[in-house]
């Protein structure tokens, strides 16, 4: 008798995600070409995207703030394997971008830039989808591209690595 070494048991579950009030505001902002965050009333940190709470203080963030589409690369990597979820072919640059006025860096693609030119502290700006294609999704920001500005000093983003 031969041993059963594997069985196939297909499982599929579908979910309807609830963004929540705060993230919903952010996503609606994306559809308007705006980046909306929320400020903690205690520590004054600005979270983008907001989840409705300050994770450090554990209090609701109710104060909405619009932040700039310009920011600083805090850390990055060059990806050389294809991604199931990103539409860009490899190699491509992933980065954490700290937007001016925000206290939480967020994940972004960097394009219009040679790979060996990407660096920590590099100043970048958001490139938005054409107005007709703006939608309540992160993908309304197509990618970030370099700004012709001097690099940000390490001290300005070292708390956000």
């Amino acid at each position, binding site marked *: 008798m031969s041993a059963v070494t594997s069985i196939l048991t297909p*499982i599929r579950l579908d*979910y*309807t995600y*609830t963004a929540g*009030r705060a993230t919903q505001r952010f996503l609606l902002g994306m559809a308007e070409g705006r980046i909306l965050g929320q400020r903690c009333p205690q520590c004054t940190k600005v979270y983008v995207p907001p*989840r409705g709470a*300050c994770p450090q203080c*554990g209090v609701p963030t109710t104060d909405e703030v619009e932040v700039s589409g310009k920011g600083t690369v805090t850390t990055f990597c060059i990806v050389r394997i294809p991604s199931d979820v990103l539409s860009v072919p490899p190699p491509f640059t992933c980065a954490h971008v700290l937007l001016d006025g925000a206290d939480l860096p967020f994940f972004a693609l960097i394009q219009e830039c040679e790979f060996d030119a990407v660096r920590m502290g590099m100043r970048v700006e958001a490139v938005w989808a054409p107005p007709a294609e703006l939608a309540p999704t992160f993908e309304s920001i197509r990618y970030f591209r370099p700004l012709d500005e001097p690099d940000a000093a390490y001290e300005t983003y070292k708390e956000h690595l």
Partner: protein
Amino acid sequence: MARREVAIVGFAQSASVRRETALNEVEMLMPILGEAKAQAGLRGPEIGFTVSGSCDYLAGQPFAFVSALDAVGAWPPIAESHVEMDGAWALYEAWVKLQTGEADSALVYAFGKSSMGDLPEVLTLQLDPYTAAPLWPDAIALAALQARAYLEKTGRSERDLAAVAVRSRRAAAANPKAQVRTTADVETLLATPYLASPLRAHDCPPISDGCAALVLACGEAVRRSAMPPVWIRGIDHRIEAHALGVRDLAASPSTRLAGEKAGATPGGVDLAELHAPFTHQELILRDALGLGADVDVNPSGGALAANPMMVAGLIRIGEAAARLAAGAGRRALAHATSGPCLQQNLVCVLERD
């Protein structure tokens, strides 16, 4: 080592609703955590231990419980833990932590938004993944197997089950947090069609979104509370086999044993909150715990009236404590269950000074 006396000093819960579409889990939890801490008279940084109960399968996201920590405020770093179980088991972990003397207070919370997925199918994944889950028996079908076994063994009837639902709904009518608050008589309920024979809709719990939080304290920390302390005099939990076929589904030996170990002597309590999502399960639990007609069972309406997954067990403990604190009795029993067909059971005995 002498046992430390642990008190429940704060409890808050959201209203249970069929579908919470506006708020995410963090937004649901924050006001509830704030309310429980305020009752306890403790600010976040003063709390020695934090522990939650939830299930990532409900959210459909790995590590959803870590995201929920945004609601707590985890900086400077806090001592924190999580159980992938009903919050009643998180409370048990907190109680053990307080016994070690490493903390004098603990925040316990639980959340569940069942509405995001197909709950009966999500619950199927609790089963043995090789021989049971691939057949996709859902939670209602499994409960119906248990109900049939119980009715056959005891000679009780579907009318007895309906009577449980009627009493539960009547009690829930006075509970603003409950979800099923429409009263009905036995005849009306028995005229409705089966969902899975012998169970009808009224024999089954609603699908609920909700959350709850509870604060425990020892020693000096107890005195800060605005709520009269309710003491945990005994707590124990027991588990039965995973495979449904090897269990006697018509009885709950794990509940009986947990009750004995927790000191829940028959006739010794004024009220009981039993986590019985199905009508027949309340009867099985009453049998296992020897609860007579003199005990006020599920004055909140119980899980038949509001059943946020991973939360409804913790709510039983909080409801029992809140009722004792309000003067509804001196001694109460609270029970929580987890797993299919009452697989795991926790019993705690609560007392007011």
